[in-house]
Every structure is written in structure tokens, then in C-alpha cells.
């Protein structure tokens, strides 16, 4: 008997995302939110958990919570509850976190191809700074607590386990970030911690419907680390299963420096949270008026809808449509260029043809840059794309024009003129003569083409391209060569 076949695995991934809400004040008191201020200046008896102090719900945080629920297509609960989640840790001065438990503000919903399980409101903990080599509480020389962050409003968004690869997780998280940013409810900055993502990861044999044992990954504080951490965990679990060893349910800490995953100490993990309804708060009643007010504050088109429109109405490739929608600045730039092309008559420029010029632009300005802040105006990009369409300039020459535009801005037509990059054709610019020279310079290639080996046409086209410095249209060159060698 041969070795048993190595099974194919399907990863099953769900995400839990914490988002700091961009309200003026904290979740349960009037202290201002801040970032980077001196420690412990935005505090009061309530957020310090002093004896006798009580929480009061922040109306703005509720409004934002309902907006998020609506944007994600959730059902908004008319009545939801806050619970005390008991855990004892130095970042948590009351020794319980006020959170929502079995009756959350929002349930159900969907974003893109991933279903939403629930969305609920809670409060952030204080920030611990551990001095010492480990950077973690165990083995630290000293730990400082900064209560400025304590009580910052948070929403927790929990997805269903509908994600099946690390890339899908990262892309979906980017979609979520764009959606939240567009709602204006949060900074959604992973490096600053205003967007935090934990992942529940398991794998199962492809085709199985049973879920495998999951692990929870924490501390992946960038989109790249989310992909990297999940990928590493999928590989780790595959190795275990291939060796016939079980996956242990545990919480793993992602180390961005080494890319490794280490289990959190059981002391940090073993919790019985002893949830019970928070007696200091009354039930949260989301009235029809509150929901209507939240709905009125939603943007007219959310990223998922925009991606669908780009793909279905404008005919962009699915990946491009998502890229433009999820990175709203690209979508905005593209739409401005599209409008400009339309205003110029457009010469029948298809949106997809225009969209193909965004990638070369990004390549030249840097992948994270906003093209609206580059030297290339949407109008000039539209002009350039139109010039290619009408064969006023070849594709290669247009790329050179784009390089000039990125460097110095200006009008593409004038750059073409100044640099002599206008398209040349057989009729008026002696292209036929250059083709003749190409054939004469490489009779062997010409002979092969004549014999029907079209692969041999490359060196001939290359010769013409060099001679014309890329100004000639590739299709036209090919046509002329074949005409002569038939």
C-alpha cells in the first residue's frame, strides 16, 4: 500500500473586530477622548472606577452603533441590555467591563460575501505600558496604567465564519474599514489601535461541513499582519493534522517581529466572566426615531454597493471594482476622471479602458498614495486615456507621458508635443520605411514569418519600436509587417 493521500484542507475563519468610536466623550462619562495626551488627564470618578461612581450611556455612541448596524444590514434591537463582564486585570479599574452580552444592539447582517453575527457596544480598557524586556505584563520591571483610554466607546463586530483564506480575511477587513471610515464613526487606524482585529481560525478537510477546533489569534495590528498571522496559523494547524496531532483550543499571540504565534499564559486566558445584567444602567431602548436619525446619517452609497455598481454598471473587472470601492480615494479619483472623459466627449472611451490607467498611475505614485494628491489631475488622466483610445498616442508612449505627468503635472497633449511622443503611422510619418528597414536588418526572422511562424515577428516589431522610441502603435506595426511578408 502506498502512503495515504495528504488531505486538502479548507480554512474556516471568523473575525472579531473592535472599533473605537470617534465620539467627543467616553462611553459612560463626560471625559474627552484623546490620543497622545499626557497620561491620566482625561479621567473622572466614573472612568477611574472610584467607589460610588456610576455609568451613564453616551447617546452619540448609541447613534454610531445603530449607524454601523444599519450599514451592515443588521436588525436593530428595540431593547438591548448591558451586562457586567467580570475580569480582574490592572487595565480594568472596576474589575468588570460594561458590555453587551445575550441581548446586543444589532444582530444578523452582511458585508460583501461575509455574514455578520452581531454588533454590540462596550467600553475600552485603560492602556498598560509594560517597561522591561518582554513588553508584556509577565516579566516586566514595572507597568504604568494610562486611564485616558479607559471607557472609550467601542463597538465589537463579530462575523460569521464565512471566510476561507488569509487574503479574503484581509480584503474583507479592508472593506469593513472603508465602510466604517465612510460612516465617519471612527478613525479606523490599526496602527493606533482604533481598529483591532482578532481571528478565530480552524481548518477542516475540504468538503467537510463539520467545524474543526478553533484557535483565537490576537495582536495582529496591521492588515498585512492579519493575513500573515492567519496564514501562519493555517499552516501550523495543517502540520498538526498531517502529523495526526490535535489542534488545541487556545488563544495565540501574534508576534509581528518574528511572525510567530505563541500561546497566551493560561492565567491570562482562563476566565469565567460571570456575566450578569448591569444594575447601574437601564435597558437601551432604540426608538424608531433613533433608528431613523441613524439612517439619515448614512452615506448614500456604501463601499459594497459601490463595488457592485462599478462591476455591474460600469463593467469594471471584479477585482478592480472592489479595489476602487474599498479604497474610496481610488474610486473617487476614478469617478472624477470618468466624468471628465464624458465631458470631453470621451471618444467612446469605455470605463474599463479608463480604469486600466489607474494601476500604472498607482505604480508611479506609490501604492498607498492618494492619486488626488498627485500631480496628475483626473482630467489629464482622462485625456491621456482618450488619446490612447483615438490612437493619438501609443500605449507605450502614453506610459512615458504618465511618468512626465507624475513628475511635473501639466497637460498630456503638451507633453506629447514637447517630447515628440505623438503616434506615427504608415501614411504620414514613414512608418512603412522603418518596417522595411526592420525586415532588411533581420532576413532570418523575416523568412520565418513568411513561412508562417508568427512567433518570429517579435524581433521585427522590437526593431520598429526602438526606432520609433515607442511612438508607433504595436497593432499597426504588426499589420504592416504581415502585409509585406505575405
Amino acid at each position, binding site marked *: 500500500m502506498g502512503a495515504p493521500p495528504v488531505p486538502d484542507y479548507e480554512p474556516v475563519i471568523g473575525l472579531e473586530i473592535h472599533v473605537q468610536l470617534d465620539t467627543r466623550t467616553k462611553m459612560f462619562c463626560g471625559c474627552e477622548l484623546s490620543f497622545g495626551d499626557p497620561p491620566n488627564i482625561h479621567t473622572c470618578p466614573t472612568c477611574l472606577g472610584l467607589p*460610588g*461612581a*456610576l455609568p451613564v450611556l453616551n447617546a452619540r455612541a448609541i447613534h454610531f452603533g445603530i449607524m454601523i448596524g444599519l450599514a451592515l444590514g443588521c436588525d436593530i434591537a428595540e431593547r438591548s441590555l448591558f451586562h457586567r463582564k*467580570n475580569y480582574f486585570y490592572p487595565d480594568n479599574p472596576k474589575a*468588570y467591563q460594561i458590555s453587551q452580552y445575550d441581548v446586543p444592539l444589532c444582530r444578523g447582517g452582511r458585508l460583501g460575501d461575509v455574514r455578520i453575527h452581531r454588533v454590540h457596544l462596550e467600553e475600552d480598557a485603560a492602556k498598560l505600558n509594560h517597561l522591561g524586556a518582554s513588553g508584556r505584563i509577565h516579566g516586566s520591571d514595572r507597568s504604568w496604567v494610562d486611564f485616558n483610554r479607559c471607557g472609550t466607546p467601542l463597538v465589537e463586530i463579530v462575523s460569521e465564519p464565512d471566510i476561507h483564506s488569509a487574503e479574503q480575511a484581509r480584503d474583507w477587513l479592508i472593506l469593513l474599514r472603508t465602510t466604517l471610515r465612510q460612516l465617519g464613526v471612527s478613525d479606523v487606524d490599526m496602527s493606533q489601535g482604533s481598529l483591532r482585529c482578532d481571528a478565530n481560525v480552524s481548518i477542516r478537510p475540504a468538503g467537510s461541513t463539520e467545524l474543526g477546533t478553533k484557535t483565537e489569534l490576537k495582536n495582529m495590528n496591521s492588515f498585512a499582519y492579519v493575513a500573515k498571522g492567519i496564514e501562519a496559523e493555517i499552516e501550523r494547524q495543517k502540520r498538526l493534522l498531517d502529523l495526526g496531532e490535535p489542534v488545541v483550543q487556545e488563544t495565540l499571540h501574534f508576534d509581528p517581529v518574528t511572525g510567530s504565534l505563541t500561546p497566551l499564559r493560561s492565567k491570562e486566558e482562563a476566565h*469565567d466572566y*460571570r456575566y*450578569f445584567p448591569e444594575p447601574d444602567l437601564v435597558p437601551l431602548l432604540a426608538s424608531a426615531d433613533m433608528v431613523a436619525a441613524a439612517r439619515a446619517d448614512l452615506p448614500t452609497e456604501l463601499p459594497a454597493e459601490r463595488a457592485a455598481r462599478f462591476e455591474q454598471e460600469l463593467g469594471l473587472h471584479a477585482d478592480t471594482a472592489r479595489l476602487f470601492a474599498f479604497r474610496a480615494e481610488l474610486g473617487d479619483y476614478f469617478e472624477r476622471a470618468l466624468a471628465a472623459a464624458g465631458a470631453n466627449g470621451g471618444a467612446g472611451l469605455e470605463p474599463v479602458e479608463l480604469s486600466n490607467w489607474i494601476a500604472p498611475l498607482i505604480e508611479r505614485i506609490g501604492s498607498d498614495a492618494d492619486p488626488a494628491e498627485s500631480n496628475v489631475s483626473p482630467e489629464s488622466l482622462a485625456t491621456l486615456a482618450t488619446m490612447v483610445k483615438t490612437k493619438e498616442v501609443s500605449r507605450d508612449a502614453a506610459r512615458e507621458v504618465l511618468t512626465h505627468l507624475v513628475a511635473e503635472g501639466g497637460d498630456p497633449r503638451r507633453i506629447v508635443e514637447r517630447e515628440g511622443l505623438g503616434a506615427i503611422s504608415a501614411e504620414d510619418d514613414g512608418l512603412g520605411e522603418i518596417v522595411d528597414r526592420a525586415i532588411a536588418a533581420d532576413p532570418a526572422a523575416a523568412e520565418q514569418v513568411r513561412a508562417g511562424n508568427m512567433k518570429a515577428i517579435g524581433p521585427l516589431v522590437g526593431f520598429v519600436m526602438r526606432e520609433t522610441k515607442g511612438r508607433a502603435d504595436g497593432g499597426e506595426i504588426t499589420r504592416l509587417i504581415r502585409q509585406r511578408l505575405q
Partner: protein
Amino acid sequence: MNELIALSAAEAAERVRAGEIDPGELFDAYRQRAAADDLNAFTWVADEAPRDHDYAHTPLGGVPVAVKDLFCTEGVPSQSGSKILEGYRPPYSATVVRNLAEAGAPLLGKTNQDEFAMGSSNENSAFGPVLNPWDRRRVPGGSSGGSAAAVAAGLAPWAIGTDTGGSIRQPAALCGVVGLKPTYGACSRYGMIAFASSLDQAGPFTRNVTDAALLFRHMVGQDRRDSTSLEFPEPIELPRGEDLKGVRLGIPEELVGADAGVDPGVRASFDETLRLAEELGATLEPCQLPHASHALSAYYLIAPAEASANLARFDGVRYGLREDGASDLTTMYSRTREVGFGPEVQRRIMLGTYALSSGYYDAYYGKAQKVRTKIAEDFRGAFERFDFVITPTSPWTAFELGSKTHDPLAMYLNDFCTVPMSLAGIPAISIPSGLSEGLPVGFQLAGPAFSEPRLLAAAYALEQAIGFDGSPARA
């Protein structure tokens, strides 16, 4: 006795307002008495009243108020009777304390109490027991024992305390003063060091019902810092009515019946009060509160459960006691809590933690909440037929120090008649109904939510008829 001290608080306030008494002299008279306290009723006494007030133009006329230790008072020790908060001076004052100060009742002192309001005898205080001014070998009741004793002994014109399962009414009964537990939400809880948040409620201790109405009037009000507080739906008038015509009183068999264990002397005083009520025109009938006999069991799950969360924050890091010298953080935490919390508090933290634990929640906390709902329904049903439900406040009079400390369950029975109203969130008042073997007996009336004005009026009518003389204790 000093002539000023003999005045009721309402009389004193009127005299100050009329310009007949100097509020500073009034304050000093009480300050001296409080400072000379030999009942251990006070844990801190003010040096002087704030001078920036024109007390003659305030409704409470500068009549000083004694405040239970667990109310946070800015810059003044607020220790909730616990060693773990030894020396803690909060940076802010409780809303009720501020309300009273603004109405012209300056802080006289902080009064002793059972630790974190857990107890019925004041023997659980880290600062020693309070003595009952009627008999110093006996307890004043608890947990607001210091406030009750201070008012009974004339060390304070009036006081405030808190009631979670009887902590105002029972000590009021045992000390022969008036104690009102208001409707849950009538007074802000902001700044009250929490015991059981869904039950805790502030209320007045006074020599008579009129003083109770006056003090209560200035305690109530919705507080934007307490989401569970409500605006009191009507003005609180000083009671005047002297009869009980048409008032229907229900006597719950479950609390007052032959099996309820009411002491014979207490029963005699209760029966005598019933006779007076009938004379005043009230009708009396037995009523049923079918779930009331389960109230104590439910209470001793719900209250400790909430307390276990409320008290988890005391860890020695940010305020209060810290047991230094530990080699690591966890040891410091446990040493601080071991030394800082008394045995009854430790017992309730453990009970409550257990009741909320995974796998036990439904059987204990969940079940207790269902019982609580049933008890509230029982009262709603009763109030369809009756204006008030009446019981003895406590099944017995003040007992001897140390006589129940060895038996927590016997101690818990002190609140047998008071806990059901706490679980239902409804108001109840205890007034002195007479003496049994020289010790005061309390009579309790309970009404529907926000019925305090009617409750105070009925209590006032009974008070006039009873004619209780509390002065021996103040001699």
C-alpha cells in the same frame, strides 16, 4: 438638655429661617455632642459648617445632617465601615449629600455602619460596633446603625442612611426613630459606595415623620449621573392629616402570621397600633404575598452577586488600604483583601461569586431574579386591594451585642419583614410604635412606587395617635 437640641429638625430650621436661632450656634451644639459621642456612632465629625452659606435663606436652615459613612463626601473620610477603605477621602461628593448641602443642611459627621452595609447589628464595622442608646449592651441594628443611634441619642438632628434589605428601617425600629426607605430610583445613588446596586437606596433617619418628609423632599430628584434615578412625580408636602379614614391596610400573613417568629412584645405593640389605626378610620384585612417567604433566599443570592462585582475593585492599587511587602502583584492583591475585608464581606463575596459562576447562574441568580419578579407581582396584586401593607419592622427588639454574631443565618432573619419591599423596589417607612420591655418597637408601612407622600401622611396620623416619646434616649 440643651434647648436647641430639644427642637425637632423642622422646628430648628423654621427658627433659623425666622432669624430666631443662629445656625452657627445650632451647628456647634450638635458638633459638641457628636464629638463627645460615646456610642461609637460617628467615624468622623466636622470642625465647622461651611461659612459661605446664608442658611437663613435655605429651606433646611443650616440644620446639620449626619451622613452614613458610605456616602462619598469630598475630602472627608468615606470608608463604608471597611478597613480596606481606611483613610480614603474621595475627590467628590454623593449627589444626595450635595443636594442636602445646597438645601442648607451642612455635613455634621460621618456615621458608623456595617462594613459595606452588610449586616443588621453594626457589629460588622471595621471601626467597632455602635451601641444602642436605649441600652448600651445592645446593638442599634444595621447596617445604618450609626445614623439611627445618632438621631436617637440626639447627637444629630437628623441623618441619612441607605437601605438595601432593611438597613434604614431595622435600625430605625431598634433605636426608636423614623426611617424611610424610598422608592428605588427616587434618590440618586451617585456617590454611594455600592453594596447591591439594584437594591441600594438612600433615605432619612429622623425623630418624627414631619422631619422625614422635609429631609426626603431635598434628597429626591433625577440625577443625570444616575441612569436609574427618576424625577419624583409630585411635590413632597409636609404631612398634616390626622386620621386614616378610608385607608385600607393589608396584613400579610406570610410575614406576620403565627409562623413568622414575631417576638410577643413586638406583636403586642403591633396589635396595639392596629387598634389605633382602626380608631383613626382605617380598615384592616389579611392579605397574601405568596412569595414573600422566599424573599430572604432570593435576596441572599442577588445582593451578594452584585456585591461580588462591586467589591472586586478594591485591590490595594489605587486607593484605600494596601498591604505592602508582597513579592508580587497577585500576593499584594490577596493580602490586601484578606486583611481589608471582614469575615461577613468575604462570605458574601464568595457566595455571590459562586451564584454567578458558569453552570450555576441559572439555578441561583437566574432563579432568584424570577422570585424577585414574583414578589413585585405579589405587591402589585396587594395594592389593588390595599393602600398599604403593614408589618412589624423587625421581628424583635434590639438584641445583645454578640448574641447573633456566631450565626449568620439568624442574623439574616432580622430583615425578614423588610427584604420583600426592597426586592420590589417600593417605599416603606418604619415608625416607633412603642416600647417592649423598655426597648423600641418599629411599625412598618409599605406602599406602591412613589406613594411616599401618602405613606408619610398615614405614618404621621399614626405617629400622632401613638404619641411615642423618644426623649428618654436623649436624656
